[in-house]
């Protein structure tokens, strides 16, 4: 199947180095301490953060830093055909672990000893790049909750199909079986917090694909910053400051 046309267009009309349209909204869940909705094209994710709060299970309490817990699940209606098991399967457990480890890299857990931070992420609509969208949504929700962070974590996927590096893969491109790199970075600190790859890639091509993903992450970071700054300004404006 041809994923990139001779004119250099992908199946959804994007250029190889073009991202899907992104949209974010802060404060979607009123009862949560911090929450956000993040959309990347047709992928739509909602994240809610509770904490820092008292550890519920005393045996899990860590005296030197905060306990970070993460739960990822996909809504039954998130895919074309209804999902039977949306939570607790191996894929969900693995993605929960990935999100937790990625977020732990940016949260200053040592400032909140003997407490617990819960991150709940739900995929409302899936069209490829769900774990990237989840990490971006979780970052926004953590910032909304006022949890101390080293930097914003942003994530983006990139792949290699028809001898062309592609940025921000959708479901059709993702399931084509080609290499798929998911990258998470701390943009201001220039550090990588997540790097996953399906399939194989020669090292020189991997560098190109990674560079493309980094550029995508930085573009998302700029957008997330704009959203956070706009939210702060809006609060100030409303109060007449």
């Amino acid at each position, binding site marked *: 199947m041809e994923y990139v046309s001779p004119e250099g267009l992908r199946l959804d009309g994007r250029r190889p180095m073009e991202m899907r349209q992104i949209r974010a909204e802060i404060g979607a869940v009123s009862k949560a*301490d*911090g929450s956000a909705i993040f959309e990347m094209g047709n992928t739509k994710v909602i994240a809610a953060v509770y*904490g*820092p*709060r*008292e550890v519920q299970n005393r045996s899990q309490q860590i*005296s030197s830093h*905060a306990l970070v817990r993460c739960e990822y699940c996909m809504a039954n209606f998130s895919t074309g055909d209804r999902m039977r098991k949306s939570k607790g399967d191996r894929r969900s457990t693995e993605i929960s672990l990935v999100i937790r480890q990625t977020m732990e890299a*940016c949260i*200053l857990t040592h*400032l*909140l*000893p*003997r*407490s617990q931070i819960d991150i709940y992420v739900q995929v409302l609509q899936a069209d490829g790049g769900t774990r990237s969208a989840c990490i971006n949504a979780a970052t926004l929700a953590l*910032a*909304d*909750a*006022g*949890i*101390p*962070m*080293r*930097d*914003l974590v942003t994530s983006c996927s990139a792949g290699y199909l028809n001898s062309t590096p592609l940025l921000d893969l959708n479901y059709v491109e993702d399931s084509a079986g080609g290499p798929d790199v998911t990258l998470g970075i*701390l*943009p*201001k*600190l220039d550090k990588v917090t997540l790097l996953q790859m399906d399939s194989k890639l020669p090292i020189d091509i991997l560098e190109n694909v990674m560079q493309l993903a980094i550029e995508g992450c930085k573009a998302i970071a700029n957008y997330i*910053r704009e959203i*956070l*700054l706009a*939210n*702060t*300004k809006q*609060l*100030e*404006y*409303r*109060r*007449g400051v």
Partner: protein
Amino acid sequence: METKSTSSFTNLVDQSVCPGDVVLDLSKMINQTIKLGGGLRQDCDAISVMKAGRLRFSKPHKYWVENSQKRYVPYAEDSVLGIVVDSRSDNFLVDIKGPTLAFLPVLAFEGGTRRNIPRFEIGTLIYVRVIKANPGMNPELSCTDASGKAAEFGALKDGYMFECTTGQSRMLLSSPTCPVLDALGKKLSFEIAVGLNGRVWVDAASPHTTIVVANAIMNSETLSGAQQRIMVEKLLQRIQ
């Protein structure tokens, strides 16, 4: 302080900042003292932001990030509204919406001795003062002011308690008086206790007044001063 470093900070003062933003390079500073408040941290030679909000400056050398959130980070000398969740032999465990439960020693009351230990049922709402707030230990509370007098602290009977953001609770406690409280106070008679942890307690002679005051305060979070006054006027017109 060199001109470079001052400009880097003054450019960002009263500006919105995000986690990861570097607001000051200490390597360019010579023999200068600065105090860092909430939302800022020192990372080697850089002062960076760890919470989204607005960078504030207070003379001579205090910097902090002002933000609004639902959870409360305990600081010494803050007055907060707590809920008793457990009672121990030597202290009460109090929920102050912080990362951990706070301790209220049974002797931390005016004239507190082993003979007259107060009895607080679980669920009692109390107005207390934070006296110790270190990251490695549970915050410690007291029901007395700095001079050892009970003052306004203690159990709050009756009334209605609701929650708001920490930013709004600071706004309600700000000086000059917050427009919504100013407008309500001119027309209605009520008692209010605002905790810096984002809890507000309201009591009035009639439940009717209590509900009006509580709703007005809850609605005021997203309004400017002028809008708050208009909203209160409309509310009062409806109920008269």
